[in-house]
């Protein structure tokens, strides 16, 4: 079965990802991770993450994927020991010093996309060192993946959703030159989303649209991709829940032959809506052209679809306790989605505040309110505005 691999920026998002159907999560520690300014996990939190995941028979991978300078090596040996003792299932690395050190400690190694792997001979080199899994460069085409599988029988992880580097990963230091922030040690300032001037010419931009592989998931399963990776360790709980929920349903629907075209369109619409940029397939079937990039300034939109998260359910009084995340009111048609449930459409007839008073609007961020509901909902179920029919 193809693994669904989710990002998680902190413990809450890790739990959400796993509960919503991810088979594994990848996280960053406080050091050595390419999202240096994300919240990230302490060693104690990594242990807690592993315990939580393993109880669900799921996995945790930890990124140790910076390009090391000499001084960064101080403490790496001990850190890898701590990761091993915490129970991590693999480390994601790109620098050969981290690869060989992890392998010497018998920690399974996933070669990061930072290593820019696009051919089978490169895989063979890393296999000779003992690397077990490979995150291919996002530039890998369908034919590249098929050939690599045929020549190496490697365990292959491919990105299927989220932001794209314009550069081949690991081959960009625009950030270093423009902001003095080292992109290969987690300081990337996303210079590929800047607008550049050129004498007597239109503004030059190089920003890519995001990746969305819904239309090719079935094909990627068939050609033997081992793990479907979602980008975004700095994304919100709602984003993680939504994307993982959609892909879980798509993959399961394909595996048990129940996914209809209408359902696929529904999930595509949901995924398009949750992204703040347009999403398209990129290199898989054709070379990216004009349609796969932006040529004006940032075209990013955010929406207020995510209106609440379930904290508890009162069986006796049939009330669901919601933490507000965006404005909603009586009369709104919303949709609940969560672990172990089909999407459930609901028209808000009544909102009750924590003092027991009826109110018309939940307008305050993070306020707690009750909604009368006949079906029992689990903690972490999400409530969003209903926009699409399934």
């Amino acid at each position, binding site marked *: 079965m193809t693994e669904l691999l989710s990002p998680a920026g902190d413990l809450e998002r890790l739990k959400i990802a796993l509960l919503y159907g991810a088979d594994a999560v990848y996280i960053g520690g406080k050091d050595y991770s390419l999202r240096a*300014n994300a919240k990230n996990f302490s060693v104690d939190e990594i242990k807690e993450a592993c315990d939580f995941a393993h109880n669900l028979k799921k996995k945790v991978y930890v990124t140790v994927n910076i390009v090391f300078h000499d001084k960064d090596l101080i403490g790496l040996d001990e850190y890898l020991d701590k990761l091993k003792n915490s129970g991590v299932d693999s480390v994601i690395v790109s*620098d050969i*010093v981290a690869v060989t050190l992890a392998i010497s400690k018998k920690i399974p190694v996933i070669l990061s996309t930072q290593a820019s792997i696009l051919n089978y001979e490169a895989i063979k080199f890393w296999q000779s060192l003992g690397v077990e899994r490979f995150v291919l460069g996002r530039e890998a085409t369908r034919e590249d993946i098929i050939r690599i599988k045929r020549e190496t029988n490697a365990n292959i992880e491919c990105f299927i959703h989220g932001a794209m580097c314009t550069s081949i990963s690991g081959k*960009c230091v625009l950030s270093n030159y423009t902001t*003095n*922030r080292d992109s290969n040690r987690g300081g990337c300032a996303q210079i590929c989303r800047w607008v550049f001037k050129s004498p007597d010419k239109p503004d030059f931009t190089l920003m890519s649209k995001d990746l969305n592989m819904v239309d090719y998931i079935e094909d990627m399963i068939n050609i033997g991709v081992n793990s479907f990776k979602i980008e975004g360790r700095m994304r919100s709980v709602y984003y993680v829940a939504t994307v993982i929920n959609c892909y879980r349903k798509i993959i399961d629907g394909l595996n048990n032959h129940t996914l209809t075209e209408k359902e696929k369109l529904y999930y595509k619409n949901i995924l398009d809506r949750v992204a703040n940029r347009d999403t398209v397939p990129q290199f898989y079937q054709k*070379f990216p052209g*004009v349609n*796969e990039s932006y040529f004006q300034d940032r075209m990013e939109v955010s929406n207020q679809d995510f209106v609440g998260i379930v904290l508890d359910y009162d069986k006796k009084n049939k009330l669901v306790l919601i933490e507000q995340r965006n404005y909603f009111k009586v009369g709104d048609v919303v949709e609940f989605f969560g672990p172990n449930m089909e999407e459930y459409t609901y028209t808000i007839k009544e909102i009750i505040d924590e003092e027991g008073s009826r109110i018309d609007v939940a307008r305050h961020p993070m306020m707690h309110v009750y909604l009368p509901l006949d079906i029992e909902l689990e903690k972490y179920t999400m409530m969003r505005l209903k926009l699409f029919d399934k």
Partner: protein
Amino acid sequence: MDFQLVHGKMRNKILITINREEDIKTLKELGINTYVYPLDGFCVGYPNTFLISKIPDNSYILVNRILDNKGIDDLKELINNNLNKIKGIIFDDLGILQIIKDLKMEKILYLSHFNTNKESINIYLDYVDSVIVSTDITKKEIEDIIKFLPDKLTLFVLGYVGAMYSRRHLLDNYAKFHNIPYQNELNITNTNHDFLVMENEYGTYFYHTPLFNGLELLELNTKYYFINSAFLSVQDIKDLLEGTSKLETDTGFLYQETIFKLKGEENND
């Protein structure tokens, strides 16, 4: 720095990329005798590349593309059919290492932005003859690595340095979107940061400008010194080496250490 003084000691240690065969005469006069030919079909960011048939026997070639399966197959065939041509190869993709590991040729690994620490370089030296040290680290860091690995390294000392390599055809798409004539080179700027962009069928390559002048690294004794002559004339090279050039240069990160954690966000848990 008195290049002429260092020149005598270092002349056989400089590897320089070639733009035109006819430049060699001048380079010889400068005491530079080892020329690296950017291999046609296997390079990005080089306005002048050379078909293997045009490269003299016993030469050094440069392959800086990240190769897909077809690329690695094509290169494998080219190398096997032209072993007499290739004395040495400077390369980036580790798939190339896999195909040349048992061949008798000098192997110099240029992993662009990797090779920033002594341990990694030392590991790669089990497989190759030399490693080009990243230009993303400071002179102090380079010195520390040389102390650990004397006589094994190649230092990038002069020329435009790559800042980004995309597989996409960014200039072609840009021309198509704006309906303007296609040009495969473009100078771009944002907040006083300038880049020279060049595209070919294998991707788009960004060079940082001004060009990097690290000739002071010639004082550090090691195996080779690398000069990238892309977008430079042989006269430019001569002037730069003799210290008479009026071209704007900088020292890259030799004296400017990069950061990667922002202040105030280190303890955000």
